[in-house]
């Protein structure tokens, strides 16, 4: 019974990998990209977020930053909920109020 359960879970994880392969193939075959843009060009310090003239550029940079921040908060989740940044922030605010 346990063997079956174990195999099913592994199969689920593996089928997740299979689905991602399908996604990669669709992405590669069907998305048409005209030219290689320099939209994500660094340096970081010169980024102008939400500048309307460069809205598309800014948009992807924001998502790039999102990837960084998302990983940061997950690293904080490693220990336990008490070090979750938003909890820390709420705690700090509550201390100020009290």
């Amino acid at each position: 019974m346990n063997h079956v359960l174990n195999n099913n879970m592994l199969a689920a994880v593996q089928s997740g990998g299979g689905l991602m392969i399908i996604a990669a193939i669709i992405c590669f075959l069907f998305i048409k990209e005209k030219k290689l843009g320099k939209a994500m060009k660094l340096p970081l310090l010169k980024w102008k977020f939400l500048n309307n003239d460069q809205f598309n550029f800014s948009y992807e940079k924001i998502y790039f930053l999102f990837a960084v921040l998302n990983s940061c908060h997950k690293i904080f989740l490693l220990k336990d909920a008490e070090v979750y940044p938003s909890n820390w922030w709420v705690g700090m605010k509550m201390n100020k109020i009290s």
Partner: protein
Amino acid sequence: MPQRMKIIALVQFFTWPGLFLMWFYYSLSVAYHVFGATSNTDPKFGEGKDFAGLTLAYYSVVTFIFAFILPFIADKLGRKLTHSICLLIGAVGLISVAFVTNKYMLFVCMTGVGIAWTSILSMPYAMLGGVLPRDKIGVYMGIFNFFIVLPEIIASFCYPG
């Protein structure tokens, strides 16, 4: 809906169930398959789940580091090729979990997932940003996010616990 958005939505549709299944079953798989737990009361089960949690945190570290490298790769290779390669690396990472015999090899698997995760969080949106009409960008982004949630609901029906 712009043509490119339809295709990227399809890519998302297949990508997110993969992650969803990982979040659901990876820790259990590690506990039973790698640590050899026989039931959820077995001490090895807790040990396995803890270690799985550690490797899941590790993939976020990989994501953090790779997020700084990704823009350079995207500039060189183009976004669609970058995203395709990252997804393939993630897929290999997930599939290889089944072949792990030593628990430390899980870090290698999760390195692949971390690379894919970086791309998943940024590349689809970067590819989409340029083709949406500016006055409707919010609406389209909202619709686009349906394609993250819908496949997860479907996956939760297809893979009952």
